[in-house]
């Protein structure tokens, strides 16, 4: 006997046959099947092996609560492990594998774990593998030695190693009412809200809307439930203010009624359509939320309750009614409430034989008796299932009389069945409510946790509220014809034979946590629900304990002799069910990152520039000519700057307009040096500190008018400096009349540097002189180049005679072309970041590599910039004892004595061969210096200047670079600055 397709019935499309493979075996199913229903239809009941004991397991539920039937879905090179078979819609070509079995599902070596009896109880690994207290494998080392083997034996599916090639996307949704769940309560809520003119989202995790009405037999308004669902859906679909979201699981409830939802757009297709994402992540902001999330049926815990063929009663009924599949041909029902009687009748109507209905209660309602009579089979009241047998699927069950919560010895009977449908009562799906509410409340009558009082704007509807009937879900205005059954269960969670050794009784099927594990946790003192969960891992598997939570708590409560209400429950945290990381990241990686390009970008690329990403900016690293290495290129470029003239794009520098009557006063406060004394049309180098006296950023600021300054910042810190200025103006000195505006993108900039720089400008600038009198060092003039207005400031980063030429961004390329044309006579060379870096290293100018958030101005020998005449941000803290200590790491120059390249980040040590833990500092920037003909670097080293002339060593084990260096002044080249002042 095995499960099979019923001869008729179900909502599947029997005219469409779909092929799929399970562990390499070709099978078929129909459109509308899930993988679980299709496997059952093919007679497959053994679907996976359990986590710890490798016990055979089959389908246990028909929904998102599935703990057992996990498989790996294979699409091309991609493997997605641990997907419940109940959640996989069948498509033609679906390929899946079973998990946690070796060498095969039917014969599994790991099943020997099961024979080891109670060895693998809760805490087993901790207790066993903490190891001996002495010896080479003591303590955690022993655990690490064993861990590899344990992880291979225990576990779930195996993820693939291929990159995920699927697309994912993000959506933001805004609505008046978000209805979560599309059962009768959700549909009614959505229809009512839509009728009020509200903008409504209706999210349903399953592919089809309708919830339990898809498989429960109720008549609504005198017609079949089907008809009512179809007409309601048609009505909703026609409304412009309603959005239906099937295959969308709302997984998290966050502040201000923001909810996260995952829409599985094409998991149910063999191939995505062009441009279609696999998953779409929704962030939904709803004014109001209606939680109509329904309820989960829960099992009863009894010995041998995990064999394939044992499943939830509602799941068995759903397979029969919705999928036209008989989960067994001869079925037993085991219940503590009436709802399983309805399931029995559904199974009988679909063609199965009901062998026996076993109920722990001594008496049941009239409605239940009537259902039992119609379903056929024996009705055993006051009985319980006490054991099961069958190797790879259920073959036989044993029942014994049961009263007052105990088994009565004697009177054992056995039934040969191939399916046991179990119902231990219903638990409202309060997961989202518990994320947005107070502690859930235990209800004695329903023996379940009811939704808590909300802390956000939501209301509940239907089974979620603990009203489980269809009539209650639809409200008073709609007539429903359904059996008037009693949902309140008897308070029986576990059947526990006393006095003899019995089979394992599982509470958490996915993590193989048994009832005796919970009692063990209790004996060992792990009694609070939070401890219980962590010690036994109860409810921590991928199903998050949807079926095991309440039975587990009930068993702990019994062990402690307390009512469940006093034991409480753990808090349900998001996500409600698995969310793909791809959907959370969506397009935030890769090609959707914004790119900042300077006005001259295309020119650089056309000239063979190798571009370098500096934050969001793209900057030329070198302009490679055929066959040059990077080093050859930057050395050629830097040498040209020293010998004749070069030009570099500096448009990326941060530029902030600082304007207003108090602008000069403001700059005095944020810079360490004085700006109020700066004459109009002059620029000054400035240094900013953070409040604690650490260097923050540097740059030149130009006084364009009495109340008008242009501040430049480093490329990387432009945003941070802007925010820093805004903070002080808004929060600290609101009385200052100053306005700051970011103008980085408004200006294009080119620096022209080298002995011939002035000649270049002289031959292309109109409207102003640029000789030393008209444009001295740090002077500013305005003129035109090629008819475009420009502002020119004479300042130097390279140490050469140099000018920064700024023009409106739209004129950037035009002015650049004019400068290139003017420079032709002098063999002007465009240079990139590498040459720029080389020139500044030779000069010992600092950048972000040295202003790294740890260095003080003194560490960088910039104390000459600290004004004594006025306070500034950081002035009170810059003289702290710790920042004056003699062993601070300070700026030095480094020369490689072995004529080999150095590396940034390499450590400087006093003796060769030492590990970097003996480090006295590190290299911040390095280059081959064409001016010196040596490999040089800047470094931050303990003691700084005091070490000049000393021999030290570079130690870079990662790149295997060791060798002697000399510590020298960081002013390698032209320390007097005669070239830039010339």
């Amino acid at each position, binding site marked *: 006997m095995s499960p099979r397709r019923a001869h008729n019935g179900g909502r599947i499309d029997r005219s469409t046959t779909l092929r799929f493979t399970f562990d390499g075996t070709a099978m078929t199913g129909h459109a509308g099947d899930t993988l679980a229903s299709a496997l059952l239809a093919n007679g497959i009941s053994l679907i996976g092996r359990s986590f710890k004991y490798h016990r055979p397991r089959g389908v246990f539920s028909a929904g998102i609560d599935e703990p057992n039937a996990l498989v790996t879905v294979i699409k091309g090179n991609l493997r997605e492990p641990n997907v419940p078979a109940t959640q996989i819609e069948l498509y033609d070509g679906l390929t899946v594998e079973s998990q946690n079995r070796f060498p095969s599902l039917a014969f599994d070596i790991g099943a020997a774990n099961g024979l080891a009896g109670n060895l693998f109880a809760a805490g087993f690994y901790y207790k066993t593998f903490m190891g001996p207290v002495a010896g080479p494998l003591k303590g955690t080392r022993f655990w690490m030695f064993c861990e590899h083997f344990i992880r291979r034996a225990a576990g779930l599916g195996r993820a693939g190693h291929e990159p995920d090639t699927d697309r994912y996307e993000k959506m933001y949704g805004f609505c008046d009412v978000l209805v979560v769940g599309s059962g009768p309560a959700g549909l009614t809520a959505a229809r009512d809200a839509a009728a009020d003119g509200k903008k409504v989202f209706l999210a349903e995790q399953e592919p089809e809307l309708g919830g339990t009405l898809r498989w429960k037999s109720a008549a609504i308004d005198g017609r079949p439930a089907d008809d009512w669902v179809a007409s309601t859906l048609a009505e909703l679909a026609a409304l412009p203010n309603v959005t239906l979201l099937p295959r969308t699981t709302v997984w998290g409830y*966050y502040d201000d009624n923001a909810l996260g939802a995952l829409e599985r757009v094409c998991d149910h297709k063999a191939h995505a359509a062009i441009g279609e994402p696999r998953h779409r992540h929704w962030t939904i902001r709803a004014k109001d939320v209606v939680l109509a999330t329904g309820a989960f049926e829960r099992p009863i815990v009894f010995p041998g309750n995990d064999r394939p063929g044992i499943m939830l009663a509602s799941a068995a009924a759903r397979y029969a009614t919705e999928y036209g599949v008989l989960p067994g041909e001869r079925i037993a029902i085991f219940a503590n409430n009436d709802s399983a009687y309805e399931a029995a009748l559904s199974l009988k109507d679909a063609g199965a034989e009901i062998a026996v209905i076993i109920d722990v209660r001594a008496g049941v309602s009239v409605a239940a008796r009537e259902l039992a009579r119609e379903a056929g089979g024996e009705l055993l009241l006051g009985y319980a299932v006490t054991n099961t047998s069958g190797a790879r699927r259920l073959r036989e069950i044993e029942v014994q009389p049961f009263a007052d919560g105990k088994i009565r010895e004697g009177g054992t009977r056995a039934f040969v069945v191939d399916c046991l449908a179990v119902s231990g009562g219903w638990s409202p799906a309060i997961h989202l409510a518990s994320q947005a509410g107070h502690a859930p409340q235990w209800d004695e009558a329903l023996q379940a946790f009811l939704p808590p009082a909300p802390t956000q704007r939501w209301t509940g509807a239907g089974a979620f509220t603990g009203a489980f009937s269809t009539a209650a879900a639809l409200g008073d205005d709609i007539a429903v014809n359904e059996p008037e059954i009693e949902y309140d269960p008897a308070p029986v969670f576990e059947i526990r034979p006393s006095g003899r050794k019995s089979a394992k009784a599982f509470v958490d099927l996915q993590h193989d946590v048994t009832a005796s594990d919970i009692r063990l946790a209790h004996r060992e003192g792990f009694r609070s629900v939070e401890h219980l969960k962590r010690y036994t891992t109860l409810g921590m598997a991928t199903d998050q304990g949807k079926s095991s939570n309440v039975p587990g708590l009930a068993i702990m409560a019994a062990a402690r002799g307390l009512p469940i209400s006093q034991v409480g429950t753990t808090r349900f945290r998001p996500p409600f069910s698995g969310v793909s990381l791809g959907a959370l990241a969506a397009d935030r990686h890769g090609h959707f990152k914004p790119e900042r390009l300077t006005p001259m970008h295309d020119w650089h690329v056309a000239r063979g520039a190798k571009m370098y990403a500096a934050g969001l900016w793209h900057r030329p690293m070198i302009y490679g000519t055929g066959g040059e290495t990077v080093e050859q290129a930057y050395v050629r470029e830097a040498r040209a700057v020293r010998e004749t003239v070069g030009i570099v794009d500096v448009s990326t520098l941060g530029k902030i307009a600082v304007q207003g009557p108090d602008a000069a006063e403001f700059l005095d406060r944020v810079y360490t040096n004085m700006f109020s004394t700066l004459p109009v049309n002059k620029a000054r180098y400035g240094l900013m500190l953070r409040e604690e006296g650490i260097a923050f950023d540097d740059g030149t600021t130009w006084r364009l008018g009495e109340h008008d300054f242009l501040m430049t910042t480093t490329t990387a810190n432009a945003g941070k400096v802007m*925010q820093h200025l805004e903070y002080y103006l*808004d*929060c600290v000195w609101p009385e200052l009349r100053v306005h700051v505006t970011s103008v980085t993108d408004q200006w294009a900039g080119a620096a022209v540097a080298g002995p011939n720089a002035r000649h270049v400008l002289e031959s292309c600038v109109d409207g102003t002189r640029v000789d030393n009198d008209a444009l001295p060092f740090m002077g500013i003039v305005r003129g035109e180049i090629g008819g475009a207005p420009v502002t020119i400031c004479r300042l130097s980063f390279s140490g050469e005679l140099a000018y920064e030429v700024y023009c409106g961004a739209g004129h950037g390329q035009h002015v650049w072309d004019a400068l290139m044309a003017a420079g032709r006579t002098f063999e002007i060379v465009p240079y990139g970041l590498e040459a720029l870096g080389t020139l500044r290293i030779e000069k010992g100018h600092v950048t972000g590599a040295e202003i790294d958030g740890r260095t003080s101005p003194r560490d960088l020998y910039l104390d000459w910039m600290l004004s004594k005449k006025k306070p500034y941000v950081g002035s009170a803290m810059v003289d702290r004892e710790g920042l004056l200590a003699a062993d601070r790491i300070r700026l030095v120059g480094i020369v490689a004595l072995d004529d080999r390249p150095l590396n940034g980040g390499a450590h400087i040590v006093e003796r060769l061969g030492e590990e970097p833990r003996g480090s006295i500092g590190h290299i911040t920037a390095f280059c081959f210096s064409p001016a010196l003909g040596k490999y040089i670097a800047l470094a931050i080293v303990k003691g700084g200047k005091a070490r000049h002339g000393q021999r030290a060593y570079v130690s870079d084990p990662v790149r295997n670079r060791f060798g002697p260096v000399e510590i020298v002044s960081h002013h390698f080249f032209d320390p007097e600055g005669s070239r830039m002042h010339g």
Partner: protein
Amino acid sequence: MLIACPYCGPRDLSEFTYQGDANRTRPNPMSNDQSAWNAYVYERVNTAGDHREFWQHSGGCRAHLVVIRSTLTHEIKSVAFARETAK
């Protein structure tokens, strides 16, 4: 979390940048009292409850706001322009 910017209206948290505790007062800039500066720069009260803090609407109007927010529930009790309320 939504912050109701007095200029732009209610906006998502992702548009804002946290800019620190708004309870502290910057010492007189001429003061050399190291303990006062140390307290200003480093010492913070880890409030469980209503907290007065600066947020900048960096992805919007760029104004700094003084927000009173419960650190226990994220409930926002008040929002005002820092320029109008700063001490």
